């Protein structure tokens, strides 16, 4: 079995709701979280631990002259203060596999060496007996530096990064088709200049890292981790010169991930190095102000896009040049977000020719990486603004223009001559126009237009807009799951995946229960621990349900087969005559007759059972799932909103997210993902932005400046989960549901604001702030 071609006889999850799959059952995670018994990073404590506090750069760009830690070192309770010299042997933070060459010199050192490149960059660390004392001492560390000119605009010409290197580490280029010819033959050429602000995931729990070194077994442990434990384990081991089997990472509860949690940051290495060197456990908990300047930013891009269209509004070619503001260093993702933007920009449309150049540039801001729907929130905004502009230029209805360009269901699977994340883009399945029709009908799009016209007649400023998107999920290459049943019948599932609070345990337990015939609520799901499973690829890119879900299905089916076989021998029946219900193996044709519990079966398969002589004991199986191709969920967002003419404030009144995710294992959780994703998208569309003053001082360092939506900003959100196009690439038919709620919000809200203003193309940047809207209102009058 290669995980790609369905093996002969491979069991596919049957369509329609099963016993537990496809049902909105309650989460198995909730109990401890509701009782206050969760174990988030700050809740982890070890005896005699030291507290680490980071001294951070206060200048955006400067030559570092001297760090004087003598006063801090002399303070009571301070055990050590480190500067760059103390960690000279630790290499800079690496990035994950990428085809892009030459990024190494731009990686971040764990403590700043000779230059300070952004406000918030770690310069020194203090280790003290308690957190308050560590903070006091950090304030006594004196950083002497000489200011250098700052670079804050990625569209400005590159400057010098270091001698012989400029601030443009790479340009991501992709191209296919006859772009030049298409523009020459075009009926019309539409040109736009569009930008998306600097945002980030901003989980409610800040980062934390707690390291402990157990000298008795020579094992270094890191707690408070998330998302990518196995990769991080291997890198920490490599960077600190230890064998990977002497380093273990543990995940407790994670208070939201959204792309930013669980990457390898300087602080992770610093606590590990200190635990080894100081022989004490080290605890570091980020505060909120630090979070805003130290944890990955994302999204800021500026696009100059041109499209060639024919007289019917069909796309002939797109030529896009964009500038990606990476901030001060290249972090663990390398140029991945720019690559995703370039690869995913065409979205759901037929596009005969395409050329893109993504200028990946460094500035003196907090370094950037992924945030929910990375590269897609940005390019959906750009592409859908473009489609609206095409409609306007040719006098067509915005819905009609999209219809004419959508890839048809009959064309699936649809291969684009493009790649991203190192995989070819093959849209695996979909009925785009079918979903568009469903969404328009559900929203009452046509009737709403009349209603809006009537309201406008009374002087209200109201409008509606829509945006189509294609997501990607289920990034391979592999993931494994081990399912075991012990001698009491208890089921344990160990996964190489992680959880950032999205309900992974419940979803995997549902799939396992469906295959095995046991109670999902009693399955113990272990994740995010390198000591329990050798490999894993983590929780990101909406990959867990696809990859670990498929591996769970295969492993649980394998255990089922083993159980039926052993039970068959015990009951003197053929396995094909048996089934498993509520943890008991019994006759498939009726509950009467002989039966045996899974506990008994497991005991019969124990190491001391005579039948197991010469065989590997245990009612347990590990299965792996491989994938070379991603799956592509898709959907459409529809927004209706009003604008207050006095304040310029935009109030979204009604919103629909229609999202085809192939198969919803738990529709209630999927809906929760989509609603939560929408809220984040709304933040990016209307409120959130990291701003800087001309010296590069960050202006958004509290929740009072970086405004994430509260309940008061939330409209009524309707969610339409479609399962019309199950993926052929996995046995469950699933595609990820983590990012579709976020993807198109900026685009749909922008279209609706244009419509309310009666000014097509008015919105050219996100977020759409009240002051800009007021200016547009003035312009419209």
């Amino acid at each position: 079995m290669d995980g790609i071609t369905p093996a002969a006889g491979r069991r596919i999850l049957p369509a329609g709701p099963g016993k537990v799959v496809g049902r909105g059952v309650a989460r198995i995670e909730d109990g401890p979280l509701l009782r206050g018994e969760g174990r988030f990073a700050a809740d982890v404590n070890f005896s005699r631990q030291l507290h680490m506090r980071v001294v951070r750069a206060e200048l955006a760009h400067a030559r570092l002259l001297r760090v004087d830690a003598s006063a801090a070192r002399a303070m009571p309770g301070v055990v050590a203060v480190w500067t760059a010299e103390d960690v000279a042997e630790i290499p800079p933070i690496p990035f994950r596999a990428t085809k892009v060459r030459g990024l190494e010199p731009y990686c971040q050192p764990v403590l700043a060496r000779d230059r300070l490149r952004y406000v918030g960059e770690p310069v020194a660390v203090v280790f003290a007996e308690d957190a308050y004392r560590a903070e006091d001492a950090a304030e006594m560390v004196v950083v002497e530096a000489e200011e250098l000119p700052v670079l804050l605009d990625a569209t400005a010409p590159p400057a010098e990064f270091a001698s012989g290197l400029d601030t443009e580490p790479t340009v991501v280029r992709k191209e296919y088709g006859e772009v030049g010819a298409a523009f020459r033959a075009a009926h019309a050429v539409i040109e736009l200049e569009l930008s998306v602000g600097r945002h980030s995931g901003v989980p409610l729990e800040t980062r934390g890292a707690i390291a402990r070194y157990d000298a008795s077994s020579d094992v270094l442990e890191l707690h408070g981790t998330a998302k990518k434990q196995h990769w991080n384990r291997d890198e920490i081991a490599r960077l600190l010169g230890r064998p990977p089997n002497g380093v273990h990472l543990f995940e407790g509860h994670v208070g939201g991930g959204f792309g930013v949690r669980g990457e390898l940051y300087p602080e992770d290495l610093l606590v590990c190095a200190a635990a080894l060197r100081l022989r004490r456990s080290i605890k570091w908990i980020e505060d909120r102000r630090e979070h805003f300047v130290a944890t990955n930013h994302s999204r800021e891009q500026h696009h100059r896009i041109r499209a060639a269209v024919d007289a019917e509004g069909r796309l002939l070619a797109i030529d896009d040049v964009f500038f990606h503001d990476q901030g001060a260093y290249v972090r663990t993702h390398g140029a991945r977000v720019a690559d995703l933007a370039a690869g995913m920009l065409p979205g759901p449309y037929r596009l005969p020719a395409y050329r893109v150049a993504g200028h990946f540039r460094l500035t003196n801001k907090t370094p950037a990486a992924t945030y929910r729907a990375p590269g897609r929130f940005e390019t959906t905004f750009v592409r859908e603004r473009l489609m609206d502009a095409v409609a306007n230029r040719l006098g067509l209805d915005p819905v009609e223009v999209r219809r004419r360009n959508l890839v048809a269901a009959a064309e699936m699977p649809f291969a684009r001559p493009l790649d991203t994340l190192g995989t070819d883009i093959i849209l695996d399945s979909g009925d785009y126009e079918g979903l568009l029709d469903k969404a328009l009908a559900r929203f009452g799009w046509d009737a709403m237009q009349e209603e809006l016209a009537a309201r406008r007649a009374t002087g209200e400023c109201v409008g509606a807009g829509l945006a189509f998107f294609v997501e990607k999920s289920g990034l391979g290459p592999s993931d494994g799951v081990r399912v075991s049943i012990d001698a009491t019948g208890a089921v344990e599932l160990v996964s190489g995946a992680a959880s950032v609070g999205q309900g992974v345990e419940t979803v995997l337990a549902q799939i396992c229960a469906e295959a095995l015939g046991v109670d999902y609520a009693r399955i113990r799901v272990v994740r995010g621990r390198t000591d329990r499973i050798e490999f894993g690829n983590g929780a990101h890119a909406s990959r867990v349900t696809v990859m670990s879900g498929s591996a769970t299905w295969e492993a649980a089916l394998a255990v089922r087969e083993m159980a039926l076989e052993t039970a068959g021998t015990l009951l003197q029946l053929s396995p094909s005559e048996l089934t498993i219900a509520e943890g008991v193996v019994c006759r498939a044709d009726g509950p009467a007759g002989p039966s045996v519990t899974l506990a008994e079966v497991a005991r019969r398969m124990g190491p001391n059972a005579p039948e197991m002589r010469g065989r590997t004991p245990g009612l347990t199986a590990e299965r792996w799932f491989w994938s070379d191709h991603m799956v592509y969920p898709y959907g459409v967002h529809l927004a209706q909103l009003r604008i207050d003419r006095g304040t310029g404030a935009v109030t979204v009144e009604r919103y629909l997210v229609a999202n085809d995710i192939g198969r919803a294992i738990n529709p209630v959780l999927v809906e929760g993902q989509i609603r939560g994703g929408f809220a984040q998208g709304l933040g990016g569309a209307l409120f959130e932005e990291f701003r800087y003053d001309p010296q590069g001082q960050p202006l958004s360092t509290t929740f009072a400046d970086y405004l994430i939506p509260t309940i008061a900003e939330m409209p009524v959100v309707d969610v339409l989960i479609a399962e019309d196009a199950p993926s052929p690439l996995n046995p469950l038919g699933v595609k990820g549901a983590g990012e579709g709620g976020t993807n198109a919000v900026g685009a749909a809200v922008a279209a609706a604001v244009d419509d309310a203003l009666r000014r097509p193309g008015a919105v050219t940047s996100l977020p759409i702030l009240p002051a800009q809207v007021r200016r547009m209102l003035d312009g419209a009058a």
Partner: protein
Amino acid sequence: MSDAMHDFTLTVNGQAYAIRVEARRTLADALREDCGLTGTHLGCEHGVCGACTVLMDGQPVRACLLFAVQAEGRAIRTVEGLAEGGALNPLQRAFAENHALQCGYCTPGFLMLGTAILETDPSISDEALVEALSSNLCRCTGYANIARAIRAAADAMSTEGAT
């Protein structure tokens, strides 16, 4: 800054905790570090996010903005005090049944805020509920299910009260 230590008793969920802290220690840190009640979370330490919401003499307060010494002689209630004899209380159950939590980090704060609402104004209007809940942040759920859970708990309690 004075390092002088203060010895006093903090009453949390009806239980007395004898603690010894500096004057500058926040109530949130005292609950978490000195009483071992880590259910109260910190999201901003700045009074904005509401993750640290606890009840002091029945009123919701931000534990990150209060000093522990200010809570001397007051009755503090935290998320750990909600479950009744090990069983989830109606509000906690309503959170689970309405999928009102994802990562669960904001949940203790919303549970305590919801407790105060249910105790002071169980028939609160929808607008007033939105207004009250807008003081706390959640980054995962989009809020609709949190409001629904509190409403469901209020309804459940009023039917129970009626019978």
